[in-house]
């Protein structure tokens, strides 16, 4: 199961606002799995995800006194992390290739077939163009609406919708394998055999 948005006690937030170092560390302990998982899924690269993790918590601590409490603290932290991820995508759009390290996810995998399916899905997700990957993750997993995604990316609602549709079409192709229409054609690269 992916990282959930954590429940953070208001007393911890209040202590963090007063500059309590123990409370800062507690916020990190509670929220860092969510932030790092989000960053790994959106960015793929462990190094970029680590940068996002660090930058997110520097900002969280700097701006904790601006948190108004109208949404859960975890959701506030997640929004900062999403913005950091989008900034990373912006700074890296021209440097394409990232190494895929998919072996350090921590959820115990119950059986080999499930593990195989998850690895195939992780690889397919990593193969998506980064904008599509960001949209599919933010919408289908994090639960942001198309309107919110459009706003965060500086684009329209319909842009988010078309990216989501395209991402699902691509995921289907990557996971099912693209099969030739006749015997003389070769199979396109896929994650499973045709």
């Amino acid at each position, binding site marked *: 199961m992916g990282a959930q948005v954590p429940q953070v006690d208001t007393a911890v937030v209040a202590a963090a606002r007063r500059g309590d170092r123990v409370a800062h560390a507690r916020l990190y302990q509670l929220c860092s799995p969510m932030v790092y998982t989000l960053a790994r899924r959106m960015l793929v690269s462990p190094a970029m995800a*680590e940068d996002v993790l*660090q930058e997110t918590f520097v900002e969280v601590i700097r701006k904790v006194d601006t948190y108004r409490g109208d949404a859960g603290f975890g959701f506030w932290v997640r929004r900062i992390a999403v913005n950091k991820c989008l900034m990373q995508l912006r700074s890296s759009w021209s440097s394409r290739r990232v190494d895929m390290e998919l072996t*350090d996810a921590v959820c115990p995998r119950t059986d080999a077939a499930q593990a195989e399916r998850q690895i195939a899905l992780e690889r397919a997700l990593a193969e998506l163009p980064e904008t599509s990957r960001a949209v599919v993750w933010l919408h289908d997993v994090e639960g942001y609406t198309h309107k919110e995604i459009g706003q965060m990316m*500086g684009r329209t609602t319909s842009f988010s919708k078309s990216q989501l*549709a395209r991402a*699902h079409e691509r995921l289907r192709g990557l996971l099912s394998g693209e099969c030739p*229409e006749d015997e003389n054609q070769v199979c396109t690269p896929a994650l499973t055999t045709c």
Partner: protein
Amino acid sequence: MYPSTDDLLRIRDHEPVDAKVRAVVDAEPSLQAEVERLRAMRNALRALPAFEPPPGVWDRIAEIPETRPGSSWRRPLRGAIAATVAALAILFLMRAPQSPDTLLPSTTVAEVPTQDASNRLTRRLVTPTYASLVAESARLERQLSQIGYRPRLINAGTATTVTGLEDQIALIDAQLMYSRVDGLQPNQAEALLRTRVDLMNALLKVRYAHAQRSGF
């Protein structure tokens, strides 16, 4: 009216969808299966495991002066902001006595001190040509979404072409997405958008041709 992937995703997400589209999906088991497949894909994405944050990151964060309690970094920054606001206010007041008809045309929007820089830049990018290209791009997206969801069988050449075009479109989208912060000039934004429209046209032709061959 054959449902697009976007329509099927709306049904999956319980969003409003055209009644005719809904009727087609309700009558067609393969489309219902496709909606189920999309639902299963979403569940599978949600079930992907979490990552453990790498060790040592918190130690590094705790060492950064900005995160230390009682850090004085904010005070000079606040002072600088206050000084800037004061200077802008003085400039604004110095201009205030001028009547509107004495202002030069070029001083209308750009010199209002409260104007947000990124909004100015966005407005600068939105030339009539740019706006018409945006409209054309949106029209092509709509046409593309009306072709219907892509069937499983597709030849290698077509798949490669479609993927290549989509990748190029995605790259342009990424550049346009950050055009406000990258300081893109209007002519550069227009050129990017024109290329996007050309690529969308090409993608539409390939998808139409394939849809016709497949009987969709």
